[in-house]
C-alpha cells in the first residue's frame, strides 16, 4: 500500500472520481440495526442474483442512513436516474428488485420508501434535515478508505498539515461556534486552546468519548459504524493542534461492530501514511489505539472515563484540575465526543463561518438525534439547531405511532428532562432546552403519547441513574436511593404530600452537592415530571390526615 503525500492523496482522489461508474449501484445498510433487522440474507440474495444474471452492478455495504424503522434498507441507483430507496426488504423482495429494477429498469413501487434525500434540504433550513455529521452514513462503504477519500476524506487533514497553524484551526473552531456534542455544550475551541496551551512540549493525549450510555440513543454508534474515518480524521487534527502524539478511542464494549470498524479504519489509515510516523510526509507523528468500556454509564464523565482507560474503577474525581491540565496518566488530555470530532473535518474544509451561519444564537451547526419511543418513523436525524421539537416529531418523524396526541418528549436521557406537548414549539438549542429543565444531551429524544405515565417514566430513569451511581460521593449514592424509595411509595399509592417535598429537598442536595454531572443531573427527569405533570403525582397521593 502506498503511503500518501499530500499530492498523492489528491491524485488518488482524482483517480477514484474518474473511474467509470457501474451501470447500477446497489447499497445495503449493514449497521448493527440493519443486521438485526435481517439485512445479511438480503445482501446474500442480491449478490447471488447479480452474479447469476451477470449484471454490471456494484454492490456496496453501507452504514446506517438513519431510517431505522424501515430496515433492512436497499438503495438502487441506475445510470442517469435518481437513487431509489427500498425499505423492509426481505431476501425474496431483494430478488424481485434485482430482476425488475436492475435488469428491467422498472422501479418496484411495492417496496419503495422515501429516502433521506427526500427529507433533506440542500441548504440548512430549520425543520429540514441537513447532514454534516451523517453526510457519509448510509452513503459510503465504511470499510473502504477509497470511498471516504472520494468524498473529500482526509482533505481537511491535508489542509491543516500543509499550511495552517494550530492557532488558525482553533480560530476556525471559534468562528464556527461548535460546542461539545456529548451534552454539556462546552465550546470546543476553548477545550482545544486550553489543552494546547497546557504544559507545552509534554506528552499529551486526545481521547474520543465513545461511551454512549444514554439508553435510547445510538447516534455515536451509527457514526462510528457508518463513517469511522471521519472521526479518525477529527482525532488526528485535534492531536496535531493540541500537540499530542497519541489518541485513544474509548468505545462501549456493547458496540462490537463499531469497535471492529474503527480498528479496521485505523489499520487502513496507518497503512496509507495517514496515521503513525510522518503523516502525509509532513513529519507529524500520531497514532491511535482502542480501549473498551465495560458497561458503566458514569464513564461518559471525562474524569471517570480517564480512570477507566487507566484500568481502574470508573469513578470521577473533582475538577479542577481539568483534564487539560492533568488528565490521562496525569498528562494534559482532551476528551471529545464522537459527534464533535465528526464535525471537525467539515469545519476545516468549509470554514468556521459556514458552520457558524447554521443554527441560532449560541447553538451553531447541526445536531444528530435518535428519535425513538412512540413515534411513527423512529430513527436517526440530523437537523440544524433551532429546529423546533414539534418540527422533529410531527414533520420529520410523522407524529406518534399510535395516532394519539404527543404527551411529552424527553431529551438528554437519564440526565435530561421531560418537555410537555404544550412546549413543543421550543427551538432545539442548548439554552432553550436548559430553560425548560432539560438538556441538549448527547442526542436521545424519546416521544411519549397519552398512554405513557410520567411518574413511571421518571422512576425508570431514576432507577437507571441510581444503579449507575459509582457510589463515591454521598449526595448521589444516598440521595438517589432515598429518592427512588420515596417515588416507589408514591407509585404504590402510599405517599403523601410530605413525600413530594422530600423529593424536592433531596433533588436540591443532589444538584448542589454531587461530585459529577451524573449526580447533579439525576433528579432532572423527576423534577421535570413534577413541574409539568404534577397532577399525575398528586392523584396518587394518600390524602393528608387531619392534625
Amino acid at each position: 500500500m502506498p503511503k500518501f503525500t499530500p499530492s498523492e492523496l489528491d491524485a488518488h482522489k482524482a483517480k477514484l472520481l474518474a473511474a467509470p461508474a457501474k451501470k447500477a449501484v446497489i447499497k445495503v445498510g449493514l449497521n448493527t440495526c440493519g443486521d438485526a433487522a435481517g439485512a445479511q440474507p438480503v445482501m446474500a440474495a442480491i449478490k447471488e442474483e447479480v452474479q447469476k444474471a451477470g449484471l454490471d452492478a456494484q454492490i456496496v455495504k453501507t452504514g446506517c442512513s438513519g431510517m431505522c424503522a424501515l430496515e433492512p434498507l436497499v438503495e438502487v441507483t441506475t445510470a442517469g436516474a435518481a437513487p431509489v430507496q427500498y425499505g423492509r426488504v426481505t431476501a425474496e423482495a431483494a430478488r424481485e428488485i434485482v430482476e425488475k429494477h436492475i435488469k428491467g429498469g422498472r422501479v418496484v413501487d411495492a417496496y419503495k420508501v422515501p429516502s433521506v434525500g427526500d427529507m433533506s434540504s440542500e441548504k440548512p433550513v430549520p425543520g429540514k434535515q441537513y447532514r454534516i455529521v451523517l453526510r457519509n452514513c448510509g452513503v459510503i462503504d465504511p470499510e473502504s478508505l477509497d470511498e471516504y477519500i472520494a468524498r473529500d476524506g482526509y482533505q481537511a487533514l491535508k489542509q491543516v498539515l500543509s499550511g495552517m497553524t494550530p492557532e488558525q484551526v482553533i480560530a476556525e473552531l471559534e468562528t464556527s461556534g461548535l460546542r461539545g456534542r456529548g451534552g454539556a455544550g462546552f465550546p470546543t475551541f476553548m477545550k482545544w486552546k486550553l489543552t494546547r496551551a497546557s504544559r507545552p512540549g509534554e506528552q499529551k493525549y486526545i481521547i474520543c468519548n465513545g461511551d454512549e450510555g444514554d439508553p435510547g440513543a445510538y447516534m455515536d454508534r451509527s457514526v462510528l459504524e457508518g463513517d469511522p474515518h471521519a472521526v479518525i480524521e477529527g482525532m488526528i487534527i485535534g492531536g496535531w493542534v493540541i500537540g499530542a502524539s497519541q489518541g485513544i478511542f474509548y468505545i462501549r464494549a456493547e458496540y462490537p461492530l463499531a469497535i471492529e470498524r474503527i480498528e479496521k479504519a485505523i489499520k487502513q489509515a496507518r497503512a496509507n501514511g495517514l496515521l503513525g510516523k510522518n503523516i502525509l510526509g509532513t513529519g507529524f507523528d500520531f497514532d491511535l489505539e482502542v480501549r473498551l468500556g465495560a458497561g458503566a454509564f458514569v464513564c461518559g464523565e471525562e474524569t471517570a472515563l480517564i480512570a477507566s482507560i487507566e484500568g481502574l474503577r470508573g469513578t470521577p474525581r473533582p475538577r479542577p484540575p481539568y483534564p487539560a491540565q492533568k488528565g490521562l496518566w496525569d498528562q494534559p488530555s482532551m476528551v471529545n465526543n464522537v459527534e464533535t470530532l465528526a464535525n471537525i473535518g467539515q469545519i476545516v474544509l468549509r470554514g468556521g463561518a459556514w458552520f457558524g451561519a447554521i443554527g441560532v444564537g449560541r447553538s451553531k451547526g447541526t445536531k444528530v438525534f435518535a428519535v425513538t419511543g412512540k413515534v411513527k418513523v423512529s430513527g436517526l436525524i440530523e437537523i440544524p439547531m433551532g429546529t423546533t421539537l414539534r418540527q422533529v416529531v410531527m414533520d420529520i418523524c410523522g407524529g406518534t405511532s399510535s395516532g394519539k396526541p404527543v404527551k411529552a418528549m424527553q431529551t438528554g436521557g437519564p440526565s435530561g428532562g421531560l418537555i410537555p406537548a404544550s412546549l413543543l414549539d421550543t427551538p432545539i438549542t442548548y439554552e432553550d432546552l436548559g430553560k425548560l429543565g432539560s438538556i441538549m444531551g448527547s442526542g436521545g429524544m424519546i416521544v411519549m403519547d397519552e398512554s405513557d405515565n410520567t411518574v413511571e417514566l421518571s422512576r425508570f430513569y431514576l432507577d437507571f441513574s441510581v444503579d449507575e451511581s459509582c457510589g463515591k460521593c454521598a449526595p448521589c449514592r444516598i440521595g438517589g436511593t432515598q429518592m427512588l424509595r420515596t417515588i416507589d411509595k408514591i407509585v404504590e399509592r402510599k405517599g403523601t404530600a410530605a413525600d413530594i417535598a422530600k423529593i424536592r429537598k433531596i433533588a436540591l442536595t443532589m444538584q448542589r452537592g454531587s461530585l459529577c454531572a451524573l449526580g447533579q443531573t439525576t433528579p432532572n427527569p423527576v423534577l421535570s415530571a413534577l413541574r409539568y405533570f404534577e397532577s399525575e403525582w398528586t392523584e396518587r397521593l394518600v390524602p393528608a390526615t387531619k392534625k
Partner: protein
Amino acid sequence: MAAAAPGDLALIAKRWKDKRGSLIMALHDLQGRFGYVPRDAAQELGKQLNVPLARIYEVITFYNYFKLEAPGKNIISVCMGTACYLKGAPEIVAKLSEKLGVKAGETTPDKQFHLQQVRCIGCCGLAPVVTVNEKVLAKVKAADVVDQVYACAKGA
C-alpha cells in the same frame, strides 16, 4: 469449566503486560475466552500481570459487563433502553421470568438459560429488542417471546 487453560492466559498476559492501564482490556479477553471471569483464572492472570486479585475484583465488580459466574448455555438479554421500556420490555422480562422460573440476572438451575436485562444495545428503531446469544430479535411481542427464544436457543 473454570479450569484455567494456562496457554490462553499466557497469551492474554503477553498481549497486555507491557501496555499501561490494560487490566480492563485483559479482562475483556479473559471473559471472551471463558464467558465470565473465573476466580482461579483471574488469580492466575493477576500473577502474570503483577496485579493483586483484590485489584481485579475491584474492577470486575464495578463494571456491569463482567460476569463473576458462568452464565449458562444460552444468554437471553432483554434490552431495557428507554425505547424498549416504553414499548413493553418489562412485560417481556416478566413473561420470560415466569416461563424460566428465574429472575433477571439469574441462570436456570439446569444451566440452560441465563436471563438478563441489558442497557440499550442501540437498536431503538427495532424496539423492543431481545437477543438470544448472538441473534437479535426485533419488535418482539410478549405473547410470542417464549417461542421465539426457544426457536433460537442452543440444544435446550
